[in-house]
Structure formats: C-alpha cells, structure tokens
C-alpha cells in the first residue's frame, strides 16, 4: 500500500484483531505480559474496586473504573506504527458498570418504559434505545488545549462556580480523575515507546503530557488517542474525527514552515487512516472536509486536496468521508471527489452546507453556530459542543397497518395503534389519509413520551467525563453533556420507508377510492394474505407509473405531506427535561430496510412481506424508472430544512454514464442541482461489477438499472446474458 511499508501494514492490520474477519478477537500476541494486566484481571479489578465505591456518585465511580483500565491495560508501542496499541478496547466499562446501572434504572426507576419499548420493537413500529453513538468531540478545543489544557480549563471553571452542588462536584471530580488518568496513561505509553525503540512516538507522548499538540503528527496522535479512549473505553462513540482540513490546517502549515516535508505528512496521514481501516467498524468511521469560512469563503485548502489524494491512493473505504459542499467549494475539489466516487469509492458523501445551516437556524441556532456545525454519524449534523443523540427509528408503514386494522398491527394483531374505524368505514381517501396521520401522530407521541422518560437518566447510566471536559458549556454549567450540559441537546426520530408509504397511499387513492377497483376492506384482506391468489393486483400496483422518486405528482405530493406532517409535529418539541433540548426528525434508515422487512406486512405498493423496504428518501427498490434527475426532483420537493436532521438520497449510476470529462460534468450537474434545490445529503453509487452481477442474478431487484452509452438506451434487464457480461467487464475495467 502506498505510503505504508509491508511490515507496517501487516502490523497495523492485526493490531486490533487477529485477522480482518475476526471481529472482537483481540490479537493478544501483540502485547507483552509485563506491559500490564490481562483483560480478565482488569475486569476483576474494576469490580473489586467499584464494590468499595458504591456510596460515590456515578461520574466518580465510572472515572475511577476508567482510570483502572488505563493504569493497567497492556500496551504496545511498536516502531512500525506511529500510533500506540491498547489491549483493552472492548468497552470494559459497559460490561461492568454501565450495563448494571442501565438495568437498575430501567427495572427500578422507570419500569414503565420497557414494556412500551418492547411492544413497538416487537412489531417493528419503532426502536427506542439509549443512544451513545452520535456525539462529536469538540476537536478545536481538544487540539488547541491538549489533554492537560482540558483538565486545567475544567478546574478553572470549577473554581469560578459561585455555588457548587454535590452533582457539580461529582461532575468536576469525574473529569479530574479521568484526565489525570489520561496523563498517567501518556506517561506509561511514553515509557513503553522508549522500551520498544519508538523514539518519535515517545517524544510526542512526552510533549502531550504537558502541552497541546505542537505539530501535525502530535495532532493526529491526540485525535487517535482521544478516539480510542472515548469509543473503546469510555463507551461513547466519537462520530467524527473532525472537520479535518479546517482543524488540522494550522498544524500542517506550521510543520511545513519548520521543515517537515509533505511526504512525511502524507505518510503520517496514511498511517492514521489505516488505524480505522484496521479497526473496521461496520458503520464506518466518519471524518469530514469543507464548509465555509467566516466571510463565506471555502474551508477547502491544500490539506483538503492532500487528504483526498492520500485516501484515494490507499484505496480504502474506512474512515468514510463527508464533504460539506457550498457555493464557494472549489469545483476542482468536487470533481476530484466525484472522480473517486466513479472509480468505485462509495464512502464519500456530500452534504449541503446551505441546507444544514438553514435547518439549524430554523431550530434556533445562531448563524455562527450553524456555520461551524459538525457532521456527525452518517449524514446528521449538530452545532459544535451540542449533542445530537437519541436516534430512534420509526416505520412509516405501520400507521397504515393500524389504520387498515382498527388500530392493530397487520401481522401480530396486537393493538399497537389507536382504536379506529374498520376499513369498511372510510368513504373517501381524505378520511383514510387523515386516519393514517392520526395513527402516525399517536405513534410519534408514544415514542416521544417514552424516550423523554429514559433520556432523563442517560447521564446517570453513562456519565461522560472525557467528552464533557471538551464542551465549554458543560464545564461552565458544571453538568454532564448527556445531562443538559451541552450547548444543544437533540433527540431524533428517523422515519423509514417513505417511498413505500407514499406509493402505498397513492395506490389506495387511485385504485380503491378513485377507480373503485376494490374496496379498502378487500385490500386489507389481500394484504393480510400476502397477495396470495392476487398476483395480478400486485403486478398492477407494481406497474403503476406514479411511483415516488420519478417526479410524479401524486406520490411525491403524499411524501412531501407526510414529511411536513411529521416535522411539523415533532421538530421543536421539548425532549427529556434533564437534557433540556428538543426533538428533530430525519429520514435515514441504516439497516432497518432489511431488519424490519419480515415484520412489516405486505403493502399496497406491491411489496410483499419480507421484501426489502425502501432506503432513506430514495425510491423503492427498482422503482426509480425515470433516472437520476427525476429522483433528485422528487426528493427536493420535500423541505429538508425543516427537519433538523438528515434527508439522504442514494443515487445509483452506471459507470457508462459517468465516463470521461462529460461523465464528470454530468455528476457535478446532478450534485449542483441537488444542492441548489435545497437537498441535504447525496450519496452516489457508481455500480460496480459486483452490483451488476447481482442484477444479473436477481433482475427483479434491479429493474431500474439503466445502460446508457452514446445513443444506447436500454435497461440492464432488457439485454441478454452475453451483453450483460460485456457491461460487467466494462465496470471491472474502471476499478
């Protein structure tokens, strides 16, 4: 691999597990026994220590357990790798303290929550979980203050408090214990680096004990260490490695000024990237580029290009990269990213700077907060120092099941929805659609009430000393980031399967109420029977031209109405009183398209139970018949600036459509139009040979794959095997 020697590559790829496929199987052989205790010994140590601390508040107990891990875990500082290895990376505090505290709160303090949660999850209506996966560290402060600076600032803030409550004392104590442990850990790592002959790493670790990072490598090391400590020990995902080009640019410049070569910087960056490739979390580790400067110029700089170039040459896909794109973002930079995408790098996502700023300001952020907001997770966003956790998923098809079944689930028959008239009772589409919305509102209400109950206790279950020390509002208020300390505290419902819901409602309007081809009660019975004996009707539903995602009025209008309805209902509602923030909504579904497919009844769009549900705000599988432009026109009819969270379009393109300069211009045209029309996030997939092979094997699922070369305009399904093989070979040649 470019920039990385074979020996280093071999070492790093086995640093976190025995092989890339061996998930959660640590490579024990890497760590010498004299560098610390075994995992089992540490778990026992934590339990023993905590048994004697039961009178202390949770932040202190957790911080002491954190310290116990750092003081005792085995470590390795191999000269082949500029970043140290930590043995205890499987969230030891989760298995000891956090799970126990979680159980205690849910079973004793709020026992009413779990039955609701279990019912909604059992019926695939909504998930509700304590989300510790979507926060972004305050990288500017972390890199400008360093670990000792963060501790010092916290102590200063504590001293400035006029009145210190016991909760505040616990909060500041937690930070002190945590950061003192980090500084001791740096000392231990330094000694280990000296022992193993990793002189450069040792020098950097020595500096980080007393100062902020002083160069590009030390900044990377700080970022890496913070990530490891948060994600793998503290138990809170760090869902961005920073607005990289903006945050790291000063370090890059000072290095160049002091004689460090660009090649050395590239090498360090490559080794940094490879850590996340080797960790290999399936969700991909986000890091983002771009955005706007104070005077609306671009953040994109020489480091942005270097970043993409190194990433490109390495041919990796984890970390994954988001690009905040604005009018000032240089076209050559966008074209470089688009070129990478068309060569098969699907890990790059574009998010519109204008749309997220408008959205944040709609929900009360200042213009400056909106400009500086972080991209967190896949496509979500939040103001810097705010915390956007509380990611819940909701199934937009379930309220339809409830409305058709008198308030009961279409599969289990459980009364999950609100009691309502039988299907026989609706006289027109308007009254049925109104009932759908009533069921949807009730489901949202149930989720909001339930989540608001348990999110009052997040900071007790999993207090966040490491993160909170970085958030200026937390240390000023003396409150945990999860307990109302953050500058903004967001909870989100992600609504799934918009295309299925809109297409189903459109078909109900058209075939039941307008054409009167069948009654609503007959439709209900047909869906209950999974279309058995009614394949003709299913085919009519599937063949209907008015599918969402094709710039067709009926289904697009229904989708926009649903989106407006849920955002109007949810956005701005207060979340848990302790958090003191608000709700937002989004439309991405991660893996729920598959996870919930079997628990979601057959739908009136022609989808049978068990078949894949639609993704994000894209058309249903195989239903984007009018291509990329129509998909963009449909999705941008939905006002994404009203959500507060994400609205992603996944766009599939064939390599043949994006070849040459013309192809790049076409891709850019799609992206620019999407942004201009107020879209939020766009993910372009240029179909590779593997996808085409799947399309060959399962043509039903890839009905919309179009082949366009010069004047040829054919669907992939419409060409014969030999011709398909030709296109597969063409796709292969692009890689």
């Amino acid at each position: 691999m470019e920039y990385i020697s074979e020996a280093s590559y071999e070492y790093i790829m086995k640093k976190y597990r025995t092989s890339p496929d061996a998930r959660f199987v640590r490579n024990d052989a890497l760590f010498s026994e004299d560098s610390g205790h075994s995992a089992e010994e540490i778990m026992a140590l934590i339990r023993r220590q905590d048994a004697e601390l039961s009178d202390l508040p949770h932040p202190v107990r957790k911080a002491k357990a954190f310290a116990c891990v750092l003081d005792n875990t085995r470590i390795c500082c191999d000269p082949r790798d500029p970043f140290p290895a930590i043995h205890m990376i499987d969230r030891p505090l989760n298995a000891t303290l956090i799970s126990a505290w979680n159980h205690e709160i849910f079973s004793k303090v709020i026992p009413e929550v779990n039955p609701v949660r279990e019912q909604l999850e059992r019926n695939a209506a909504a998930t509700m979980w304590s989300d510790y996966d979507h926060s972004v560290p305050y990288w500017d402060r972390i890199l400008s203050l360093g670990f000792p600076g963060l501790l010092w600032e916290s102590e200063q803030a504590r001293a400035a408090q006029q009145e210190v409550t016991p909760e505040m004392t616990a909060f500041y104590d937690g930070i002190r214990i945590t950061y003192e442990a980090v500084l001791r850990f740096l000392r231990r790592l330094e000694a280990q680096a000296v022992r193993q002959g990793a002189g450069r790493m040792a020098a950097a670790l020595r500096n980080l004990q007393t100062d902020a990072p002083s160069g590009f490598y030390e900044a990377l090391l700080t970022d890496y260490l913070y990530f490891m400590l948060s994600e793998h020990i503290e138990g809170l995902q760090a869902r961005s490695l920073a607005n990289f080009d903006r945050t790291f640019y000063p370090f890059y410049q000072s290095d160049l000024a002091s004689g460090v070569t660009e090649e050395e910087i590239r090498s360090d960056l490559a080794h940094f990237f490879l850590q996340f490739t080797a960790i290999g979390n399936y969700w991909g580790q986000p890091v983002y580029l771009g955005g706007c400067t104070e005077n609306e110029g671009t953040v994109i700089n020489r480091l942005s290009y270097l970043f993409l170039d190194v990433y490109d040459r390495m041919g990796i896909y984890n970390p994954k990269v988001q690009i905040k794109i604005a009018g000032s973002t240089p076209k050559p930079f966008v074209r470089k990213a688009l070129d990478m995408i068309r060569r098969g790098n699907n890990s790059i996502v574009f998010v519109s700077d204008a749309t997220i700023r408008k959205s944040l300001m709609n929900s009360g952020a200042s213009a400056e907060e909106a400009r500086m907001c972080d991209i967190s997770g896949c496509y979500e966003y939040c103001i810097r120092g705010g915390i956007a956790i509380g990611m819940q998923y909701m199934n937009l098809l379930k309220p339809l099941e409830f409305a058709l079944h008198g308030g009961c689930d279409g599969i289990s028959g459980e009364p999950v929805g609100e009691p309502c008239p039988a299907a026989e009772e609706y006289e027109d589409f308007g009254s049925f659609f109104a009932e759908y919305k009533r069921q949807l509102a009730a489901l949202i209400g149930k989720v909001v009430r339930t989540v608001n109950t348990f999110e009052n206790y997040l900071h007790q279950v999993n207090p966040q000393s490491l993160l909170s020390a970085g958030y200026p509002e937390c240390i000023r208020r003396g409150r945990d980031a999860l307990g109302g300390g953050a500058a903004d505290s967001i909870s989100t419902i992600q609504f799934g399967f918009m295309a299925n819901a809109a297409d189903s409602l459109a078909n109900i309007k058209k075939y039941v109420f307008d054409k009167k081809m069948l009654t609503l009660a007959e439709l209900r019975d047909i869906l209950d029977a999974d279309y058995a004996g009614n394949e003709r009707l299913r085919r009519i539903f599937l063949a209907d031209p008015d599918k969402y995602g094709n710039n067709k009025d009926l289904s697009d209008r229904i989708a926009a109405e649903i989106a407006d309805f849920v955002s109007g209902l949810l956005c701005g509602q207060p979340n848990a009183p302790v958090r003191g923030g608000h709700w937002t909504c989004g439309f991405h579904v991660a893996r729920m398209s598959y996870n919930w497919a079997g628990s979601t009844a057959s739908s009136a769009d022609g989808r049978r139970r068990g078949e894949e549900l639609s993704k994000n705000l894209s058309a249903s599988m195989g239903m984007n018949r009018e291509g990329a432009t129509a998909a963009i026109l449909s999705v941008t009819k939905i006002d994404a600036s009203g959500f507060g969270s994400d609205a992603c379009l996944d766009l599939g393109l064939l390599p043949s459509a994006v070849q040459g300069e013309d192809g790049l211009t076409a891709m850019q045209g799609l992206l620019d139009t999407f942004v201009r029309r107020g879209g939020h996030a766009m993910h372009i997939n240029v179909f590779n040979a593997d996808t085409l092979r799947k399309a060959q094997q399962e043509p039903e699922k890839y009905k919309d794959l179009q082949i366009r070369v010069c004047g040829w305009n054919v669907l992939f399904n419409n060409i014969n095997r030999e011709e398909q093989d030709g296109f597969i070979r063409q796709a292969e040649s692009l890689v």
Partner: protein
Amino acid sequence: MDRKARISDIKRFAVHDGDGIRTTVFFKGCSLKCVWCHNPEGIGFRPQIAYYENKCIDCGECTQFCSRGSHRLTGAGHFYDRTSCVQCGECAAHCLGSALIYYGREITVEELLPLLLEDRDFYETSGGGVTLSGGECLMQADFCAKLLRRLKENGIHTAVDTCGFVPRESFNKVLPWTDVFLYDLKAWDEEAHIRCTGHSNRRILENLRYLDAKGASLELRIPYVPEYNDDQMEKIAEFARTLNNVRKVKILPYHRYAGSKYDALGMENTLPETLPEDAAVEKIKQLFDI
C-alpha cells in the same frame, strides 16, 4: 389540431448526446439503414411492439386487451403472433411485467415541452439541454422546428443529432433554433457508405458543407465499425479538417449491446460480429487530434 410527431422514446439524464445533462427525444423513422444500428426501434416509421420474453410473467393481461388475438397464453406460455398484430399498443399499456414495449407514441409539441422542461435545472448547472435524435429526427423536420423554437423561447440549449440524409430544406427549417448539430459521418467513399447504410453519402456531405458554410456549430460523430468503415477514418479526418465550425469530434466505437432489441422487435439482427480493439480506437482518436 396540433401536429404530432411519432417518437420511440424520451430519455432523461442523457450524458452522451451533446454537452452536459440532456433529455433526448428519439424520433421514429430513419432515412438510412446502418448495418450496426443500435436503435433498431428507430429505423421504421410505423409503430412497433418489442416483446422481451425473459420478462414475461405469463399473467395473460395482454390477451384481454388485444382485439386481434395476437397474444395467446398456451401451455408453453405466452405466444405473440406478429403477423396479425396491428401495433395498436394496448398490450404494452397493460403489460404487468414490462415485457411489452410500444415504440411509436404520437405526441404534440405542447405535450412534449413540459416533459422536456422538467430537467431544466440540470441543464443549467451542467451546461446541458435537449437533444433531438432518432431514428432521423429531421424526417419530421416541421415538428422539430416548432419544438426547437419553443425550447429556445424557454432558454434551453438545443442539439440535433442527425445522419444528414435529409433534404436541405429540413436543415433550413431547424437551423435558426439549433445550437449544435451532432452530425454523423460514417464513410467518405460513396461505395463504402452504401455498403454500410444502403445509401449514397453525397447529400450527407453536401449538407454538412452547407451547415459549415452557414456557421452552424458542429460536433462530428464517427462510428467506428471494424471491417465496415475502418479504412474510411483517414479520409473522414482529412475532410473534417476542411470544415471551419467543428467544435468537437467523437469516435463512437461499435458495440453489440443492441442485439436483444432486434430479437425483441422481431427484426433481423444485422449487427456485425467484429468488435473494435482499444488500441485501434486510440489510433483513430489521434487521427482526429482527440
């Protein structure tokens, strides 16, 4: 009543039919019959039904709407009798498996225009527009002229993709409303041209010179088909150098991807066997300084 055009298809996000993102209208009927034609549904002017047997789900829906009994469900599955079919298109309109496609829709300018304007935002951001293609769109030149004029009135960039084998008057009709002509050149020698397309190229070359003299913007499109026109490339390149308004030349290497279309349309497949080699394509590009 508005005059109607007969078209075979409208394709959005067309990225190889001129600059930027375009919508291409494929007109039905062509004045040539190239052996390598990749849009066989565009050759004849009469409507046609394509039947993709592999997509048929044997639902029998077409049998209920066919007034001529051309579609039958037998024990062996769906049978389509082309000889009795009058190409009314009812079967395709009701096909539930997308196995039947009707080529030959008739449409007015006022019906077509809003469809073509749907993607205007994309035209603006990418420098694209609308392309009229085919078949040979200029066989319906009056309609094209009216449509192009309406497009220009709406500020849309227009391209006409033509084989050039139409009367001079057809070009005169569209010339004021056309931003660029995508002009096919298949052979220089008349004999070779006849072998490839069934017709002489005299009128084609004259029309091209005429357009050039008129100052029309030209993009030359040269299909490269081994064993048919590979010996013509140098001569075409030499001729191209005598023209003043060629802004781009594109070599279109021959592919066989259209084979299944011939089968679906029940047409004799005339596609040549030999495919071009990459090295040869590169060499030809050099001839044209691409």
